[in-house]
């Protein structure tokens, strides 16, 4: 090689090194995650500032199941959000935090959560990212000092590298933890129940299940579709008072809006996988679907802001047989593939 060539390459290198803080795209950034959305579900909105990546989702999953994020390192998100129970708390009415204190609300399912605009029974959390730090620092849940959790992660043998792969920096920040867990949560999609396969012509409903579907839709019977939309997410995410109490014990949505008209209003939950997410309602007061239907059929009260559809509903409009059929239909919404998919379980 001529001297000129050598010199050229030396200088070429020098010119490249001359300026480091450059914004050329990184060649070895995280790999985009290819999300497979079941055909029964709509397109999923992903925030621009938190795209799904292989590394981010995998890190989020590890964090979701890691008790390191709790005050005494004994509890993870997965403790109160168990996959086999549709990511709710195994049969518990109120979940118990690390200090043995229980809250006054029932744990919520976490699948298809990326479709929601607000989180919690009262919609108090406004982004999935923002929600993440709530249970970590909540004294009745994981009761951890956030700054402490972040320094534990930074001192951990594995995490700095994993964060670097996902976010390009091994100096871990609260924001990265929020983003990673939210990414994992957005991949939890459930849309392959017997009902979905029936809609695609791949399964048949029994006559009882079919009758249950009719009761579910009929305006003079279940009229469930007003709020729990049929198909898709099985909820319109609206806030309603369903007359559980004549005077609300839990102020519900009003705690967030400070508006008395929102007293006792709660977010309409999905009915997917409903057979495995007992107990039911924001306070887990009903332990079976039969109890839920008894409430809608005859049990509801008349608070001032009772949902108009329920106010108009005639008590006793469903027969015992119709309710049994309706339960058979609700059981077709269980998605066993989702509940057992190892990709969502403890890594």
């Amino acid at each position, binding site marked *: 090689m001529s001297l000129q060539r050598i010199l050229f390459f030396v200088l070429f290198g020098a*010119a490249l090194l*001359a300026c480091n803080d450059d914004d050329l795209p990184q060649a070895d950034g995280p790999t985009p995650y290819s999300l497979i959305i079941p055909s029964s579900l709509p397109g999923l909105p992903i925030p621009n*500032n938190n795209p799904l990546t292989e590394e981010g989702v995998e890190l989020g999953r590890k964090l979701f199941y890691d008790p390191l994020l709790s005050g005494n390192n004994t509890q993870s998100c997965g403790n109160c959000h168990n996959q086999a129970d549709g990511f709710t708390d195994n049969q518990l009415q109120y979940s118990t935090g690390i200090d043995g204190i229980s809250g006054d609300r029932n744990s919520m399912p976490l699948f298809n959560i990326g479709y929601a605009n607000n989180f919690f029974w009262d919609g108090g959390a406004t982004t999935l990212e923002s929600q993440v*730090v709530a*249970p970590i620092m909540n004294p009745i849940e994981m009761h951890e000092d956030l700054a402490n959790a972040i320094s534990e992660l930074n001192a951990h043998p594995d995490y700095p590298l994993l964060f670097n792969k996902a976010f390009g920096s091994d100096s871990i920040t609260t924001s990265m933890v*929020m983003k990673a867990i939210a990414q994992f949560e957005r991949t939890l999609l459930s849309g392959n129940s017997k009902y979905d396969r029936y809609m695609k012509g791949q399964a048949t409903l029994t006559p009882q299940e079919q009758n249950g579907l009719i009761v579910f839709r009929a305006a003079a019977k279940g009229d469930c579709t007003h709020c729990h939309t049929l198909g898709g997410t099985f909820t319109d995410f609206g806030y309603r008072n369903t007359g559980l109490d004549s005077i609300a014990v839990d*102020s519900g949505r009003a705690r967030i809006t400070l508006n008395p008209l929102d007293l006792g209003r709660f977010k309409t939950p999905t009915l997917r996988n409903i057979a495995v997410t007992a107990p039911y309602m924001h306070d887990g007061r009903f332990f079976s679907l039969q109890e839920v239907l008894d409430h809608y059929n005859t049990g509801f009260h008349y608070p001032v802001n009772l949902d108009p559809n329920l106010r108009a509903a005639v008590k006793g409009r469903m027969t015992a047989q119709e309710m049994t059929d309706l339960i058979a239909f609700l059981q077709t919404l269980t998605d066993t593939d989702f509940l057992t998919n190892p990709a969502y379980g403890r890594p």
Partner: protein
Amino acid sequence: MNFRIRNLLIIFTTMKMFRSRPSILLSIPLIAFTLLINGCKDDTEDPLPSTGSIKMTVEHYTGSTPLLLGQLNATNAAGNTYQVDLLKYYLSNVSLIRSDSSLFNLGNYDLIDADNPSSQIVRGKDIPNGNYIGIRFFIGVDSARNNSIDQSGDLDPSYGMFWPWNTGYIFFKHEGFYTDTAGNIQSLLFHYGTDIALATVSLPLSLEINGTEKSLNLRFDLNALYADPNIIDFNIDNYHQSDSGNDRNWIEALKQNFPQAFSISVIR
């Protein structure tokens, strides 16, 4: 132009100019010089001295007495003797007001902690030279930032200034004790926030920015916060977390009082 590319171009041309071997030696210092002066400089021209900066120091008072944390020694307009153990709040969007009432917004989000002197300094730079007739800031965080806590700096949630049940920052915290009418010591907890609580403080000021740093003194009188125009009586209001309809009146009252609780002066 990107500096790497510019450096490369200069090297290419220099190499071409000195094709013959002896001149390579000549080209070395030339190229080295290129790298030296072009190396890592910002593309923009050096800023002319057309801007200045401010350093605003916040001081806390109860009436005319400097605030003493952990002492049951303050008395408010309602006659309650009270103590402050914790006083923290967000002071954001500090803006200087021009005579045509347009604003120069520093875009800052500062968490002020009465227990941490270094938190009590708000700095602003690159302020265009000129005369300013006032200052405006928020106690709290504007709704654009208040609806997600996935943020950094003083808005990093690890400072614990947020509610677990409601996305948003706690704008202002006062925790401590007071003596009730019967003479018993009771605890006091004020966690003030939600979008409706964003309080705007505007103060007249005569400030000339002329390329240097100006020092300002911002005085926050807690007694005025609990007095003007709405008297807050701790016997009635001693616990508020901005999470029920009953907190609305208290939020409105404090929101109206915040502007009277601050005064500003230029010290240099």
